[in-house]
């Protein structure tokens, strides 16, 4: 019996090694895969079953079911070592967490799947976390849920919300700095800068409107229609990553997300279905806008208003009147008693 057991153990370890050598670590093994390895003498199915069972017991194989068939997956020897040091409850929890991979799992779902009592579950999680096998994570979609995943994995984009979230919170400063950088980079490549030597010439030639531009100001010209030199997403991504303003490398998807945001801000325009991007403002204007934005950023709308394009409604006192809806001739709020007109008039006449 003992010899039979040791024979099985030997065979099993052979089988395991063969599997490691022949297949990827992610491979899903069916019975035939094992038989094809020709490790089991005479392809004895019963023997194979014994071997796999012993491997499963040693935590070197993970037993799975797919389409009603038994399947197996390899476990690293290191992981197996970890698992062997766990109590059965802990191992069960570990397996559940392991199965969700990079998305992580909510504590309540672990409870449902393992059927463990909450206090036991908590103890297991605490133990696992203490051993540094798992870590808790923050899901942007469900900020209130307590979730866990394996310590060695990086959470997926879905969970973190992409590069723009730090600990599940949108990192506004980071976004603004990267956005500003992108806008400027794109802008530099969307406008033709008239070389300094050429500039005097130009002045004479255009002769009209822009002639009185200060001489130290750079002149920018738009490129003709169909110009193919506008930056692509790949180029922009590379530029951002090379610039050193990001602590992590940004993927193209994250950059596209930001580019789209900039399009919604009417700063950039996507050309050719988002293949290229063009800036609407010349680099000078971008710089000016950015340096101006900085001090105002945030609350004081009335100061910011001075820079905006206006229309009749935003200028008229009625456009900003908080009680405009109540205003009626002869009413409590009326054009005759309006307190906004007088300051507005004197303000208007002051200029």
């Amino acid at each position, binding site marked *: 019996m003992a010899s039979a057991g040791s024979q099985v153990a030997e065979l099993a370890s052979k089988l395991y090694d063969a599997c490691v050598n022949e297949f990827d670590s992610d491979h899903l093994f069916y019975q035939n895969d094992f038989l094809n390895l020709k490790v089991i003498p005479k392809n004895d199915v019963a023997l194979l079953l014994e071997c796999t069972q012993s491997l499963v017991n040693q935590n070197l194989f993970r037993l799975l079911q797919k389409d009603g068939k038994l399947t197996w997956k390899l476990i690293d020897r290191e992981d197996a070592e970890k698992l062997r040091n766990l109590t059965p409850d802990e191992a069960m929890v570990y397996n559940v967490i392991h199965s969700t991979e990079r998305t992580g799992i909510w504590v309540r779902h672990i409870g449902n799947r393992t059927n463990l009592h909450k206090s036991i579950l908590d103890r297991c999680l605490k133990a696992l976390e203490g051993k540094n096998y798992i870590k808790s994570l923050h899901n942007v979609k469900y900020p209130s849920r307590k979730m866990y995943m394996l310590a060695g994995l990086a959470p997926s984009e879905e969970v973190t919300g992409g590069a723009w979230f730090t600990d599940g919170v*949108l990192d506004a400063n980071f976004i603004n700095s990267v956005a500003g950088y992108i806008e400027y980079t794109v802008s530099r490549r969307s406008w033709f800068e008239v070389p300094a030597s050429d500039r005097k010439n130009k002045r004479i*030639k255009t*002769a009209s409107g*822009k*002639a009185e531009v200060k001489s130290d100001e750079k002149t920018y010209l738009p490129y003709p229609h169909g110009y193919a030199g506008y930056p692509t997403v790949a180029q922009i991504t590379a530029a951002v990553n090379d610039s050193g303003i990001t602590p992590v490398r940004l993927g193209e998807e994250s950059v596209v997300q930001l580019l789209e945001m900039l399009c919604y801000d*009417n700063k950039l325009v996507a050309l050719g279905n988002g293949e290229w991007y063009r800036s609407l403002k010349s680099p000078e204007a971008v710089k000016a806008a950015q340096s101006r934005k900085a001090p105002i950023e945030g609350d004081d709308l009335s100061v910011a208003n001075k820079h905006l394009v206006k229309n009749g409604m*935003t200028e008229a006192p*009625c456009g900003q009147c908080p009680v405009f809806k109540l*205003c009626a001739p002869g009413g409590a709020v009326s054009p005759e008693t309006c307190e906004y007109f007088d300051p507005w008039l004197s303000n208007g006449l002051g200029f």
Partner: protein
Amino acid sequence: MMSQCSAELCMLLIEDNFGELFARIFTVLQRYERLTLPRLKFYARLSDRQLHNGLSAMIQHHLIYHFTSLDDGNTYYEANPQAAYSLVRSGKILQLVESRLGEYAAQVLETIMNLGHSSIANLETLPELQSTKQRIPNGVNHGEEEIEENGGKEGDLAAPNGDHAVSEKPARLHPTLKSLASHGYIHRLREAHFQSPNDNWLDASRIISSRPDVKIMKGKQQAMEIEEKAKEMVKERTEGDLSRGLMYNGLPQGAKKKRDHGNKESNQPAPNGTNGVNGGHVDDEEEEENDWSEDEDGIDSMPMDSNLIIRVNYEKFDVALRNTRFLELAEQDAPSASIQIYECLLRRIEYQTARCRDSYEIPREGEEGEQYSAPIQLSSIVEDVDPDLDLTGCIGPMEPSTVLNRRGKRPLDDDTNGVNGDEHEDEPSGQNRAYEIDQHLSILSQPPLNLTTKHVISGLPTWRVAFRGLARKLRHLELERMIESRYGDVALRVIRVLHAKGKLDEKRLQEISLLPFKDLRQTLASMQTGGFVDLQEVPRDAQRQPSKTIYLWYYDPDRVCSSILEDTYKAMSRCLQRIKFERTRERDFLEKTERTDVKGHEEEFLSEAELEHLRNWKAKEALLLAEVSRLDDMVAVFRDY
């Protein structure tokens, strides 16, 4: 149209322009819609004489439609809010005409406006149109014009001041009228113009449906036939176009000078650069004078039919004003040469566009098909563009890397351009120039504005403008400006995301707009109170528990537009009411300045302090009126374009 706010505004405008009697009649008609004379008299509580005088004068001004029914023989009166509203736009229109056709043309048009409609024979007899120079220093005439504006009996105005002999007849009147007509700014008055569009329509469909060949048809076919034929009939009856036959090579009279004198204009330090067409009227008078004499030489001086009755064609002016708005859009970031080319294109298009759109109301967002302008051939744009306009200087090269080399290769070329630039240098071949102009138009066709669209007809490149899309852009721009000023640029981004993506829940909205939750919620909430965005609840179960409900934010530009339009009307009314109030505040002083002996001789009769006061008052009034006209720009965008 007949909302409370717009009714109030129309009433104020009429009161301001024509006095209380008109306003009273108009308000009654607005409140009770169509009325017969006895009912009108009952509601308005006016004497017969007042009512008759008022009505006839208002009909003269097209403020009231009337319709005599064949069924009961009654004549119904109905308010014409469009005409009342266009009173506010008259200043803008006159400015436009003045910048395009000169001061005298503006004066002629103003006279026609003041008369409502007029026969040409009548215009010939008017003293103020005889000669500008005699009129201005003449105080009596000036006063008389005031009466005309405030009082109300335009019909018998022709009689007084007959001392200007009819013999020194309008040397300039007829060419001016012709050029106004060929621009489409005035048109022939038809009988149908006195009836409301609805009456015209009903009348036409009644006539069509009683025709024997239509009577035999049945059901849907008949209905369609009636609709189609009635449309034709109404069109035929209201057609007042005078430009046909007056156009010359696709250009209206008096317009050609633009090109001949284009050199001078474009060399002026770009008045166009800042203000668009309206800014163009910096032209000194001398130049205009020249243009006119030239016109008389060049174009046949056949007078117009003096029995013709004409009136102002406001629809056409909407087209012209809309084009100036497009031009302003272009000015945001296009090079100056492109803008001038664009102006030429728009001018050409204007001549071929009768009205801003075919449907009466602006169609709902998303249900609106594109409507293109008439295509303009590249070659005719090339003809119009000032030949000395520098086209190459303001576009970058196709491949920046090769620029250096190229410059190295042809220093000669560059030098000649640089040195002789001011003078006439070797004429660039027409082909080349066409290509460059095409390039400029292509720049304008780029997103986000897509100001032009290229269209190749049987091998010939033509350019046109997608009106509906651009009008929509103008609308959104106005809304965005308001949103930006009220809620900041964060809100602007949110609105644009919602507009592009439709309905979104908060999480998705955050992912796209990349805004922190706190900011996002705050702006959304404040915009919801302001009525700019709205929330839709989609319950996931029958209990409609809040926790199991999906909340979707959305932005409906149609709804926002219409509510903003009402607000704009209201704001305009408030400005006008404020003027009234300010006037009552200063009544004593103003009455003094308006005394007939003081008026026109203010310097003699008023003290220094009073003069200062008067100036202040005038500035104040001007400020408020300017605001009204700025608000009118918005109304035009939301309602007319």
